């Protein structure tokens, strides 16, 4: 009888131990999953901050170049190398996507680039104004 009781007690203790191990592994699994999610979220946040910084700097660059091109007097012909450099820089920075012809903004961008190849500063200004009117961030 005494031996039976001891066996039952050991079995209960073993059961509790199994239960404890099971809980521990369950919690640690969830902790790992949550920490992974937190790491992914932090990474996404950092990436989004970097993306926003670059977007802001690109916006600043294009705005500065537009101001520079607008400051070229319309009768400063033939264009000086300084003026041409500003116009070439703006041309490089006007984004033209693969499907630019499908959108009004894209078509306006193409027009800006086309006019920047020439030296008609009045047309360039008008083309830039058209393009800017389609952009919400410039």
């Amino acid at each position, binding site marked *: 009888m005494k031996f039976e009781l001891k066996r039952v007690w050991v079995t209960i203790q073993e059961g509790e131990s199994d239960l404890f191990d099971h809980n521990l592994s369950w919690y640690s699994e969830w902790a790992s999953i949550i920490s992974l999610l937190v790491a992914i979220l932090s990474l996404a946040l950092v990436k989004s901050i970097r993306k926003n910084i670059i977007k802001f700097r690109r916006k*600043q660059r294009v705005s500065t170049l537009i101001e520079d091109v607008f400051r070229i007097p319309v*009768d*400063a012909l033939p264009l000086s190398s300084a003026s041409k450099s500003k116009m070439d820089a703006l041309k490089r920075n006007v984004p033209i996507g693969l499907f630019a012809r499908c959108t009004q903004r894209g078509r306006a961008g193409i027009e800006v680039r086309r006019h920047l190849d020439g030296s008609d500063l009045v047309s360039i200004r008008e083309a830039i104004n058209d393009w800017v009117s389609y952009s919400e961030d410039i």
Partner: protein
Amino acid sequence: MNKYEKLFDDILNKTKLGVLEWRQLRKDANSDVIFNVNVVWRQYSTTIERNTHSFTILLVEKKYDDPEFDLAYEKYRSELLVLDEGELVTTLDDSTVSATDIAKLISVVETKSDKAKRLFS
């Protein structure tokens, strides 16, 4: 070479030859013709004869906070303003004349200005 570049070359050559005498002005002088006069940190003035008429030239140096780096750094910009009896006729800056040439003019002017002459003579 367009007329703006010719004008600038004329100013640069006459400055190098010492024909033009540059005076250093107060930073806040000519505030009625200068955009963002609060960012001006140095200003020079001279008079040039063009087509038997005398024009005032202002060499304005500006420094302002650079938004590209969260306003942590300052940027430098310079421009030349041509005035006729206090009225702005034209502006020459790095959109018309190369920034290198403007820097050359500034380096000559800062060594030949009235204050520099007083200091080093």
